[in-house]
């Protein structure tokens, strides 16, 4: 069983590490998006007229002769107290275009295109490893399944799981010490790891699963499968002269329903078609599935409430997957606990590799280049993300991805060129990352107006991460004499 754990772990370790680390930061992509648009006006609630105006203003920005698939409004929510509008269209050239704007929550006026390169990069790395759709998502789904399998094989390979529940032998050799740490982090995080990997596997493979179920259960009729899984779908109706009366729908909801649940998302599909669907997603923080949809035809007729309390168990289970995976069901306390657990999962992956390197060393079959590549990959990802954060703060969003990739590749190359110096390079990479993040927090505060509210909190968080990275680096330097000599002599160690 331990060999099964090793085979799957070693095969996918690097990808699992990337998905785990970026997953920790994906928990805060909404906040990061607000930080990247620090001048966006904040609000807790948007009026019905403002929703209608925001959608109409976005509609007015459509390309000439384009085919509009959907219009969406996001927020304001607890995690992103701003209003954003998105237009999804196909241009006459056949190009798919998705445009996001920041809107004024009081009037619905568009204040400019939303600039979210960093949050997009982090989210894309987590959900698709920044690979093209749908393959990236499928690969991440495969990683979720693989991690779920790793968790189970880890349990089965550990017959003294309860006996050893508190064993930490840091004073023994590195293999034993890292094995204890790996096992303690894994065993005590077990419920979280099972839930996270299972939901991640399903969410990544959802397209494939729905396709397979549709093919067999509905003779290939994907639309019918979607009706069962996602509620009413657009039907052919009369052509509408303007946009659907979304403001009227919002007013109707607020007048009839007295639960005070906030609107999280409005989706207008097939907006010119009166048989199209407008779904208004409401947040209900008293249940784990967290959200339900009030579904209207685009003509304004109410169709049904989909999901939430009273819905079939299967639908509620499906709706629980997102909140359980992204930790959105209990406000900021749950988000912070998820962040800690996601970092722990990242460390479980990293410690698993350290065990393997130690085992090889103990067997007289050390793999210095592979170890250097591994550490270059982990340090490089940190450096790349820090560089991307600085680029985003400096307003050069188009450079976010190139900078991230360049720093990452450069780090791997540097570590590989001097494989026996990785313990020296690692703190250098961490210090460089810390300095980039300090620069990002400074620039965001000075130039972007991230001095109050949520953007200021994110700047402080960036600062704290920078200080923590510097702390880890200093701790590494204290252990590494060669680096101390290098600093003292002002030269690079040979």
């Amino acid at each position: 069983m331990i060999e099964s754990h090793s085979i799957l772990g070693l095969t996918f370790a690097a990808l699992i590490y990337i998905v785990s680390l970026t997953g920790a930061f994906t928990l805060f992509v909404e906040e990061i998006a607000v930080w990247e648009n620090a001048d966006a006006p904040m609000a807790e609630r948007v009026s019905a007229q403002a929703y209608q105006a925001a959608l109409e203003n976005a509609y007015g920005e459509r390309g000439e002769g384009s085919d509009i698939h959907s219009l969406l409004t996001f927020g304001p929510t607890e995690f992103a107290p701003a209003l954003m509008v998105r237009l999804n269209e196909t241009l006459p050239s056949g190009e798919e275009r998705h445009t996001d704007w920041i809107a004024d929550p009081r009037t619905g006026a568009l204040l400019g295109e939303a600039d979210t390169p960093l949050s997009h990069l982090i989210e894309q790395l987590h959900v698709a490893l920044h690979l093209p759709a749908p393959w990236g998502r499928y690969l991440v789904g495969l990683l979720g399944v693989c991690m779920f399998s790793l968790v189970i094989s880890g349990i089965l390979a550990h017959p003294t799981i309860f006996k050893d529940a508190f064993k930490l032998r840091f004073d023994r050799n590195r293999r034993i010490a890292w094995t204890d740490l790996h096992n303690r982090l894994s065993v005590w995080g077990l419920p979280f790891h099972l839930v996270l990997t299972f939901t991640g596997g399903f969410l990544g493979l959802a397209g494939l699963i729905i396709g397979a179920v549709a093919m067999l259960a509905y003779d290939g009729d994907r639309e019918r499968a979607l009706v069962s899984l996602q509620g009413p779908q657009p039907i052919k109706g009369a052509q509408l002269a303007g946009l659907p009366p979304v403001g009227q729908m919002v007013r109707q909801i607020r007048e009839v329903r007295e639960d005070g649940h906030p609107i999280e998302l409005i989706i207008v599909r097939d907006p010119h078609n009166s048989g199209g669907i407008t779904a208004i997603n409401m947040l209900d923080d008293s249940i784990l599935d967290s959200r339900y949809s009030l579904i209207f035809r685009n003509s304004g007729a109410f169709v049904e409430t989909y999901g939430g309390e009273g819905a079939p168990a299967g639908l509620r289970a499906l709706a629980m997957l997102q909140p359980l995976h992204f930790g959105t069901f209990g406000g900021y306390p749950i988000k912070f606990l998820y962040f800690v657990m996601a970092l722990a999962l990242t460390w479980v992956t990293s410690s698993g590799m350290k065990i393997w390197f130690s085992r090889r060393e103990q067997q007289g079959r050390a793999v210095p280049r592979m170890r250097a590549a591994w550490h270059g990959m982990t340090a490089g990802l940190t450096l790349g993300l820090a560089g991307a954060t600085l680029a985003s703060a400096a307003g050069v969003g188009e450079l976010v991805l190139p900078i991230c990739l360049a720093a990452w590749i450069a780090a791997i190359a540097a570590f590989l060129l001097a494989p026996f110096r990785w313990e020296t390079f690692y703190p250098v990479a961490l210090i460089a990352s810390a300095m980039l993040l300090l620069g990002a927090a400074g620039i965001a505060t000075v130039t972007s107006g991230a001095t109050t509210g949520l953007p200021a909190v994110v700047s402080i968080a960036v600062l704290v991460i920078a200080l923590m990275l510097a702390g880890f680096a200093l701790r590494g330097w204290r252990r590494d004499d060669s680096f101390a000599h290098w600093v003292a002599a002002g030269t690079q160690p040979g």
Partner: protein
Amino acid sequence: MFAFAGFGAQLLGIAAWRQARGGHAPLMLFWLGLALLVASLALLIAAFGTSLGISWALLVVSIAAYALFVPRLVTTGEIGRPIRRTRAPRSKAGRGGALGLGLRLLRAGPLYLIAALGVGTTCATSLPWEEANRLMFGGLIIPAVWALGALHATADLDLRRVLAVPIAIILVTVGLYLL
């Protein structure tokens, strides 16, 4: 109020288990720890409702346990001592070498994926439940079946069995679908 009491009970329950492992009245402390953890679950359900309470409890128990050993991690100078060569590598003959590994990964990946899709869609179409429930169950079971299949493909020493089991599952599910 219930929530804070629940978190406190979890911390105390984990601490009791750690003391039990330390050798002080182990049986009594084990049961005390278990009772505190059960009580914490009840308190968190009272505070947040059933599904949210269980989610909180499972998450906080991990954090409570981490809180007990992370201080040692922070204060330790170095994790482990330098390693010396003491063990000979184990034979890999039983695993079929590189070819065996390739075959295992092939079976753990595409073959067991097809088997898992077969099991899931069979459940989605055949279970005597309400449509939404059997569709969801069928869909949700696919990653779990694939994960268990990947585990089998990489753990079973008999390569023929590693091939036979997913093929048998595929044949059975196709047969059930055609019936």
